[in-house]
């Protein structure tokens, strides 16, 4: 081996090792860069990322209205059968028969958080909630009804969908 190449390798190694140590040294003297949160102490002001998948929730507006028309696409797409929809047929003001949801049942215990229901929902009525403290003492409590009691369907579904896409 060439002697110059040998020393070149030695100095190159020292330089590259020093570059690595600079990076870790940079972080070690900056406590502000720490990303760990002290969870139970700071649960009032936790910073949770927008993309966090806590549980499936149904969005309701101020009038306690949701946009789910009970089409059942989420139920069909769910690989684990975590979603069950119980729908009713009612006759609306125009005298036509119409399908409304009675209960949108979500089994949190079976959910794998794959997001297929939310991606395929045609009316964007379900989404990810950020609540993550799901521990309960009774597993029946993990079965949740997503539509709030007394809620009804919002009529301008089409417009909502278009504005969301735009």
């Amino acid at each position, binding site marked *: 081996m060439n002697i110059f190449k040998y020393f070149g390798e030695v100095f190159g190694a020292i330089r590259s090792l020093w570059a690595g140590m600079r990076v870790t040294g940079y*972080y070690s003297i900056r406590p502000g860069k720490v*990303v*760990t949160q002290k969870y139970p102490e700071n649960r009032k002001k936790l910073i949770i990322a927008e993309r966090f998948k806590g549980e499936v929730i149904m969005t309701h507006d101020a009038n306690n209205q949701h946009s789910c028309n009970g089409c059942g696409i989420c139920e069909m797409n769910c690989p684990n059968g975590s979603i069950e929809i119980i729908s009713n047929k009612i006759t609306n003001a125009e005298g036509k028969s119409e399908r409304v949801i009675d209960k949108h049942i979500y089994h949190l215990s079976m959910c794998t958080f794959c997001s297929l229901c939310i991606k395929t929902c045609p009316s964007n009525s379900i989404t990810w909630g950020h609540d993550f403290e799901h521990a309960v003492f009774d597993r029946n409590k993990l079965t949740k009804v997503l539509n709030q009691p007394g809620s009804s369907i919002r009529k301008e579904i089409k417009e909502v969908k278009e504005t969301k896409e735009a």
Partner: protein
Amino acid sequence: MDFNIYDFTSFTTWVHNALTSSMSPGWAMFVELAIVGVVFIAFYAVIGLYLVYAERKVCALIQNRKGPNRVGPFGLLQTIADLFKLLMKELIYIKNADKFLFNLAPFIVIIASFMAIAALPFAKGLHAIDLNIGIFYLFAVSSLGVIGILLAGWSSNSKYSLIGAIRSGAQVVSYELSVGLALLSIVIFSGSMQLSTIVESQANGWWIIKGHIPAIISFLIFLVASTAETNRGPFDLAEAESELTAGFHTEYSGIKFAFFFLAEYMNMFIVAAIAATVFLGGWMPFHIPGLDGMNHVMDYIPPFVWFMGKTAFIIFIMMWFKWTFPRLRIDQLLKLEWKYLLPLNLMNIVLIAFIVLMGWYIK
């Protein structure tokens, strides 16, 4: 009694005189040995536990985490809680293990590191034994630990333990050379192997400054080689988690595992203390000849604080590169030693001998 934190000689002579006046010299010797032993056991436990804590904190800071922060203020009692957990755990006996050697191995590792602390000068007059071949002795006993590791690997009757132990043997035998030659460079500079004389020779400046470039090269080689000798990352092939579960201590549980664990951290403390003593002046304060005002301020800091501060600095560097660099492969490890560190070290020794001969260093 004349107690002085800047010079422990009067204190130790006072203890010796008090003991010899009340009992026969043989008994006095025995009591002194017992006192030194108890002090070192306490020191060993405290330093070992808090180095584990320090390592976890340094690692956490480097990886943008918080590290232990639940048990006690800032998690300071975390490692003590861990020790109690290990004390209460069951000691599992391996069916086809060589029981005697299996039980003996952790003690050999611990005893080797115990013997090494005995020779370290912690402050002026504060060392258990001041041998005139101190460096030689340290060098000899610090390599005894590998016997414990080899025995642990052999007696466990487990493939992981055996491979880990063999790797450790190859590693320690190779890197011992570099550690020895790096220390030899300072022996050439100071002209003595006695640790107290080496420290005294640094009263007007530490060897890393007085010895300029060759001393810095020796210091770097010593850091790398001693990290390898203590089986720490990035040279932790002996306990490579991913391929050997835990290497030589795979089959150990409870307090015997804790012995290996503490011995690893204690060995780190010992090599850092050797580096601090030999290259950074040990307990000697930082002096610049001519600046008397600053030298007086530096003298005001007790020598024990200087020694521990320098050791902590070197330990921090060793932790820093443990948590920065990926682990080497076994062939890369041996290549690094035999093709790079050893030739560079030999060249450096020749260079130092020449420099000392010509007097081209700060006297």
